[in-house]
């Protein structure tokens, strides 16, 4: 289908910067097992439908709070675990990616044989879980990983020379004195030296250990490195050394980075593009300047408000603001927008559901002690059965009171008692999608996109 291809060549925003890594709808679900027989009772959706590209020679920052799935995504990309859904592609051109997207939109049975063949060809050549033989080795060499904890990522029983020289040995690139010289060269490029060759990892400080990790990652001269919180275990004064080093190496070797961190200050400094994740999903994706200058998602706003030093106009008088509530259970993420349970500007269309009402009652009253059962028709429509009529009535009146967040109350389209039963029905909403709001800046917040915000 050359026509398909021809339409799409002109569109890419970043001409000349073909992606090294392309994520298309990547999912990683971990089974939750319970009971004697360890049955699967649900899934932790650590990474859910994540798509973005990492252009050659650039740094993409991945930020989000603890447990939002950053490490899991990084490990999927590095091939350390297999994604349970979607695809991770290596050196897939923008044009080919657009072709895949277009074919995806066509129902299976309507695809032409030609389209299917091309999809198959592309997947076999680029999708990392389908790479074989030399293609896999090429990918393996070119995608490296630097771990957060530089202590547990260095084998305590190996000398620095063996640690840094190991990749060279695996690919039979050097041996004997040649290997030693290569290792010395690598150590020097990260600010260590020959005198460190024959030492054990425990003889080094945290910053030095992280340098050793980086030297090992550089040994095979890779194209792409996943940096999983490379500095969060380090002190500020040492962190700046490592950040400068990473930048310098990138300049020298044209490296591409995926920089994972929870520190917005670090990510702003280091990244060209920033992806903000919350509970396994991408909330917002924009260039670094864009994201800080005009964030288009309340979660990004919240992250910035928690650290006002990062705002261009922030000084010590800017109030620091935090978020209410706790991170929801990733095994049962909220419907609609996953952030709505903590979002300070949530609207009635953001995905309010019965669980939110129940959680509110649990937090604010004791009527639920009398709850005897729940009949869940959908997540948005359930019947709560209480021990007696009075309790049901009390729950109903509590939910109607003005203590309940206004957006949740508005979203509740039905709230009625029938004896000891309380029926709660919320307006049903679709899952939010990432939408482009101009210049490659994407966000999932319905307030900033065309997804029906009003009602």
């Amino acid at each position: 289908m050359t026509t398909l291809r021809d339409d799409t060549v002109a569109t890419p925003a970043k001409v000349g910067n073909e992606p090294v890594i392309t994520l298309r709808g990547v999912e990683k679900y971990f089974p939750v097992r319970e009971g004697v027989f360890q049955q699967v009772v649900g899934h932790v959706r650590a990474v859910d439908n994540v798509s973005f590209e990492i252009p050659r020679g650039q740094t993409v920052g991945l930020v989000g709070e603890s447990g939002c799935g950053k490490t899991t995504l990084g490990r999927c990309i590095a091939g350390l675990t297999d994604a349970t859904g979607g695809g991770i592609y290596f050196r897939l051109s923008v044009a080919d990616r657009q072709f895949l997207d277009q074919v995806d939109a066509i129902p299976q049975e309507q695809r032409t044989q030609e389209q299917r063949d091309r999809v198959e060809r592309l997947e076999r050549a680029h999708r990392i879980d389908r790479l074989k033989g030399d293609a896999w080795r090429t990918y393996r060499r070119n995608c490296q990983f630097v771990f957060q904890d530089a202590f547990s990522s260095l084998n305590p029983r190996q000398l620095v020379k063996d640690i840094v020289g190991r990749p060279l040995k695996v690919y039979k690139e050097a041996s004997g004195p040649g290997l030693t010289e290569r290792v010395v060269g690598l150590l020097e490029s990260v600010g260590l030296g020959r005198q460190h060759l024959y030492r054990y990892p425990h003889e080094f400080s945290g910053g030095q250990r992280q340098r050793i990790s980086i030297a090992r990652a550089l040994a095979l001269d890779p194209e792409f490195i996943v940096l999983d919180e490379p500095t969060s275990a380090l002190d500020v004064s040492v962190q700046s050394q490592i950040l400068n080093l990473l930048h310098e190496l990138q300049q020298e070797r044209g490296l591409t980075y995926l920089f994972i961190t929870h520190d917005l200050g670090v990510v702003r400094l280091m990244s060209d593009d920033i992806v903000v994740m919350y509970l396994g999903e991408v909330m917002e994706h924009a260039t670094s300047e864009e994201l800080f200058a005009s964030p288009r998602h309340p979660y990004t706003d919240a992250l910035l408000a928690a650290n006002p030093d990062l705002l261009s106009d922030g000084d010590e008088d800017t109030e620091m603001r935090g978020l209410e509530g706790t991170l929801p259970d990733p095994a049962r993420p909220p419907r609609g927008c996953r952030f709505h349970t903590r979002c300070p500007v949530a609207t009635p269309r953001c995905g309010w559901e019965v669980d939110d009402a129940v959680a509110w009652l649990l937090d604010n009253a004791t009527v639920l002690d009398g709850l005897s059962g729940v009949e869940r028709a959908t997540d948005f429509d359930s019947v709560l059965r209480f021990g007696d009529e009075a309790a049901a009535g009390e729950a109903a009146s509590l939910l109607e009171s003005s203590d309940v967040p206004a957006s949740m109350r508005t979203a509740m389209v039905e709230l009625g008692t029938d004896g000891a039963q309380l029926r709660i029905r919320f307006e049903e909403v679709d899952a939010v999608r990432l939408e482009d709001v101009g210049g490659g800046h994407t966000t999932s917040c319905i307030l900033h996109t065309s997804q029906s915000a009003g009602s």
Partner: protein
Amino acid sequence: MTAAAPATAGEKTAALVASVEDLRVHFELKAGVLHAVDGVSFDIADGETLGLVGETGCGKSVTARSFLRLIPTPPGRYAGGRIRFWPKEARQSGGEPVDLLQVPTSDMLDIRGNRIAMIFQDPGKALNPALPIREQVAEVFYQHRTEDLLEAWNGRAPRPIRRAASQRAGKLERLAFKFPPLRSQSKRLKRRVDELVGDALAETQIHNPRKIMASYPHELSGGMKQRVMIAQALACNPDLLIADEPTTALDVTIQARILELIRELQHAHQTSVLYISHDLSLVRRICDRIAVMYAGRIAEIGTTQQVFHDPRHPYTQGLLAAVPSFAHRRGELAAIEGTVPELIDPDPSCRFHTRCAFATDICGRVDPVLDGRVAGRPVACHGYASPEELGVAAAELPHLDRSPA
């Protein structure tokens, strides 16, 4: 290094809550004596929030724990100095302070939790996993607020109830509480405890305190546990609250909420706070004054404004330049080269001299004194020392720009 008293002498007019003078805490290890805290001096004024910042291992926690004598000895040893503390009565009547390193253990038990409260970094470890939250907060009242518990009796509470209110009721008495006439009274006491615990929790803006009281620590998230810790710490209206990195284990958005809370409660209670952190941008938002610590010593002390806009010590200058902020460009972050020195049997020297861009010969030979005469506020750097007192030529001192930025 001699006591750094002169540096702070000018400020002694303001009522102080605590004054640390030349505190030294050493650990005797196999490899030698570790000078974890080596001549630390600072004052905490009434009602102020003092920030103590520094990198991992510089001795912040050891300093904080010394206030309550919580250092395990051995291997630890209080090798010198004193920590004077003025309880509320002493401050009001101009009475004498107590030296926290010297007071008898029985007095120390009363000071802990009652006069000086502490919040730790890891709320998970500081709470007892086997007790419901109610019991853990109630503990504070039983220990230090017996009178409040017995308020309703107007001083005429029967002995068993008195003993119950300080958790000293014996087996027999507890049995007696199950029967009249003590039954109703013991219930009243219980209600009073619930009330006070509920109030203490409610003050931390925790949702549904009643439910929290009945839960166990593992049922709560990190942020909620930290709120419980705060409730516990403030239940007695302490004169001084020591917060040792209370938000480091939390996510940024939750961290910001906890900080707001600590600040609000501090204003409401008029408590003095020693706030320990390694995060400069945090400390800046809640502290009145800041003491910067490096390798067991104070590098400089100043108001938040002074420290951030006019850092005097080369370490502070380097540290501020190393925090990624809006002004930095990629690859141009200032880095302090090298790493923190070993603190085992150190020679007299400025602990920063191996990494300092200004260091001269004298920095490697002589301990700098925390002195405010040249810099206008306490700074421990030879760049602000007087050549006569050190007995060297002025040219031998490090050449810093001494004028305010």
